[in-house]
């Protein structure tokens, strides 16, 4: 072991890392030229580095990717829909529309189990029956839900009874259309019709004229 080693070894490593100043490199080369011991060591270090670089890259085995995918925690269901949305935007939009549409319609049909009716000033309520008294004129449309309607007077508008029955006395007059809705399908049809009427008010006027 000669005394020159420590600082020179440091320079050797700096050289191997490509992390050496020109001045230091010249110093190192000059030293190596005259010190066979350090020269040998430098060669050995270079050999080790070269030896390592001879290592062939090793590829992951077949099926590595599917192996990883199988180990992943389960995908959130939301992602499946997002993928559908990306691949078939139109189908997805239609599916979403139908889903939401039917969900709101059917839920509003089945959830509205309560007796309710359009508030008009001169109506008389007998239990779950709405009565249009004889001689009275109800101005505007009349809707009764989950209850019965008995008309003895006059209704100046459309009459709709949802899940209930309608009795018309001989004195009854309904200027608009009158209908009874009992099934979900009728309800849907009614809902669509009334939506259309709201959107296109002209069609409503036409109906009145008929």
């Amino acid at each position, binding site marked *: 072991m000669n005394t020159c080693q420590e600082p020179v070894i440091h320079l050797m490593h700096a050289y*191997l890392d490509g992390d050496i100043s020109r001045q230091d490199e010249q110093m190192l080369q000059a030293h190596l030229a005259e010190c066979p011991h350090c020269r040998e060591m430098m060669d050995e270090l270079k050999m080790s580095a070269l030896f390592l670089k001879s290592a062939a890259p090793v590829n992951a085995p077949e099926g590595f990717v599917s192996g990883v995918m199988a180990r992943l925690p389960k995908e959130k269901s939301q992602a499946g829909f997002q993928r559908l949305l990306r691949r078939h935007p139109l189908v997805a939009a239609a599916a979403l529309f139908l889903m939401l549409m039917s969900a709101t319609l059917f839920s509003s049909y089945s959830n509205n189990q309560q007796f309710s009716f359009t508030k008009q000033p001169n109506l008389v309520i007998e239990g779950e029956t709405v009565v249009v008294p004889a001689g009275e004129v109800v101005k505007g449309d009349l809707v009764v839900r989950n209850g019965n309607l008995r008309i003895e007077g006059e209704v100046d508008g459309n009459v709709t009874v949802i899940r209930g029955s309608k009795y018309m006395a001989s004195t009854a007059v309904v200027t608009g259309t009158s209908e009874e809705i009992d099934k979900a399908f009728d309800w849907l049809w009614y809902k669509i019709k009334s939506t259309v009427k709201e959107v296109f008010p002209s069609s409503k006027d036409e109906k009145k004229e008929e």
Partner: protein
Amino acid sequence: MDELVNKRINEVIKGNQDAFGEIVSLFQHRLYHVCYRMLGNPQEAEDIAQEAFVRAYVNIHTYDQKRKFSTWLYRIATNLCIDRIRKKKPDFYLDATVPGTDGLNMYSQISATGDLPEEEVERMETQERVQYEIGRLPDKYRTVIILRYLEELPLQEISDILELPLGTVKTRVHRGREALRKQMGNM
């Protein structure tokens, strides 16, 4: 490349698992290679490299997209490898009998990891020898040597992966090279 990776990562964050498959395809060989060199065993390397990808997937929201994805991935993998190596060590005792070998103890199995007689080492093919010499390096030198010479990463990136100061990485590369030189003698 980085742009593509970040795009896929954003899709993964939104919950698209298929996008992660592409990321795995892109990095599988590099990550497997590091694990293979660290552990020296194909089955363990596959297990740990796959586990690294799973951890990356689960923790994808903690990845800082301003940094290199490969650095983050390498960090997960090298940490898992080091854990595995450390756990393996006290796993067996040399004089415990190996199950199913009718009284053979661990001394008879040591050739798989320990030092071999010189003649046997000389008969090895280069690839086998490389793995053997890497396996003999102490853990902390082995990691930097693999990243430096087999993955050919710059020192700064190694420092980022291992979360060690650049100076420490340099010292470890020097010591690792020195250890390698000594253990190989003159080839």
